[in-house]
């Protein structure tokens, strides 16, 4: 079958000879992929920053498709169902799944206890192949996959597998109270959704900080918020203090993660020399921009080693830090409602529709921010007929 194939940092190809996935467990399903996205966090893999990313891995944790085959124990799905598949692989039985922490399942990743299984996200997240392919194996098919409502556009559905829930949970974890000032660092797809979601929680003012003008322009219109380029602000932390009457924001959201720009020391030690788990510039700014007693919500992805952040300020300011991988399954019913009611329009962020065969170009366009790219989706040949 046709599948994306990782060959090393900044090198991927479309491989036509990848073996078809098989049922390996009675709870598995095989899904024929009809759409998959490239996530901003896939770029961390693409850039070689995630340990135990093996040659030959197929990435892709945002995908939808049609059930082609099911294991003996699967009861909730049948062949032919159109499903959206959350990026988290969750057993539904462990104590963490029981607490609806579906991003923290203890029965889906042997290689690391700090993260649950994720499709196509290195062996550090379980060693599963992902959905940037024609077919994919979906474990625990009775738990995660959700049948796509008939009235839902499939472009909306594919964005409900990660980007919308992650942005929404970023706002939710912020504990936003009516009237709060919320600052979102990062105008990528997740930052855009976090800004949009902040209003649903009653934010009084929403600001987004980034350095790419086309993305700032987009988020300003899409999320009806303020947008600022940190390159033109001498110091974004000082700017936020000034514009909040010298107090700081009530809630700061890090929607960037380990490849943040804006600070030479962080960039050199984190992204170039990899002496820390990526560049933590956005998190650094978030901690320093939030008010005393405020909340910092982190959904940006970082590596497993460690980062330079002003932890002393966290203590001295009494900041609450909340972070997690989004619990997609928990959030889906509410988010489907928001999409149906027109409160969130996920598909509006899609800027590029690219054939799966051109996956190498798709990664490069997204990584190098070419052609004003915000969100690329990959379409396999069978879905183009």
């Amino acid at each position, binding site marked *: 079958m046709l599948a994306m194939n990782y*060959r*090393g940092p900044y*090198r991927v*190809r479309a491989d036509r000879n990848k073996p078809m996935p098989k049922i*390996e*467990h009675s709870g598995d399903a095989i899904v024929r992929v009809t759409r998959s996205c490239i996530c901003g966090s896939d770029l961390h893999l693409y850039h070689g920053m995630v*340990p*135990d990313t*093996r*040659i030959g*891995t*197929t990435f892709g944790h945002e995908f939808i498709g049609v059930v082609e085959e099911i294991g003996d124990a699967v009861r909730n799905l049948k062949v032919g169902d159109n499903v959206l598949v959350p990026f988290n692989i969750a*057993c539904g*039985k*462990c104590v963490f799944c029981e*607490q609806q922490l579906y991003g923290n399942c*203890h*029965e*889906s990743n*042997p*290689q690391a*206890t700090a993260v649950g*299984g994720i499709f196509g996200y290195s062996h550090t997240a*379980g*060693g*599963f*192949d992902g959905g940037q392919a024609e077919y994919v194996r979906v*474990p625990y098919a009775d738990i995660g996959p959700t049948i796509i409502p008939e009235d839902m556009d499939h472009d909306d559905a594919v964005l409900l597998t990660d980007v919308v829930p992650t942005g929404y949970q970023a706002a*939710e*974890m912020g*504990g*936003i109270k*009516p*009237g*709060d*000032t919320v600052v979102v660092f990062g105008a990528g797809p997740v930052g855009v959704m976090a800004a949009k979601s902040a*209003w*649903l*929680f009653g934010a*009084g*003012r929403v600001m987004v900080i980034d350095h790419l003008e086309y993305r700032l322009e987009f988020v300003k219109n899409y999320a009806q918020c303020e947008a600022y380029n940190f390159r033109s602000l001498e110091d974004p932390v000082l700017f936020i203090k000034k514009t*909040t009457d010298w*107090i700081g*924001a*009530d809630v700061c959201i890090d929607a960037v993660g380990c490849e943040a720009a804006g600070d030479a020391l962080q960039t050199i030690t984190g992204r170039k020399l*990899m002496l820390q788990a990526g560049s933590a510039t956005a998190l650094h700014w978030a901690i320093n921009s939030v008010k005393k007693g405020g*909340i910092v919500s982190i959904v940006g992805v970082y590596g497993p*080693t460690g980062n330079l952040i002003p932890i002393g300020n966290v203590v001295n300011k009494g900041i609450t830090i*909340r972070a997690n991988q989004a619990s997609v399954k928990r959030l889906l019913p509410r988010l489907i409602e*928001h999409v149906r*009611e027109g*409160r969130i329009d996920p598909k509006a962020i899609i800027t590029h529709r690219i054939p799966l065969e051109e996956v*190498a*170009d*798709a*990664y*490069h366009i997204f990584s*190098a921010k*070419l*052609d004003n790219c915000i969100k690329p989706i990959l379409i396999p040949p069978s879905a183009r007929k």
Partner: protein
Amino acid sequence: MKKKANNYDHINGWGIDANPLDVPTYPMKHRTENDNKGMIWERPAQQAQLVEILHSNERPSVSAVFGSANPPTGLSGKLRRFAFKYSESTWTHWLVLLLADRINMMEGIGQDLKSGRLPDLFTEHGGHSELKYNKAGLIKKIAVGFAFATLVIVFNKIRSREN
């Protein structure tokens, strides 16, 4: 810092999900009777282990399901086995895995050549899109590469003459 304006009619759904409990750490932890009891849950059926699966030494065994793609092989595989002797809390674990990844990349090129496939580095690096959307950048990269190669050649020639 509260915003004074309070008319958000232009935002569809403003405040619809505002937290009714008004607690700072919403959503609250959803506690169950199985908290603090360890791994007592009824485990899902165990996936058969047909290839080598490394597991973190912070857990007693493999999880009930796992990915079976790309088991450890070659020198990179030896390094990965070594890395998994150390916990996720150690730099040794992660830095050795990163080293294994870079060696694995070279092994991948070797496998391609062995199977008669010459890696198409231009296409695999997304060169076609660079050509389409960033021609000036591509020319700059080629010029910098060419200048660097020229410098290395000239430096080597001078050094060999001096010897």
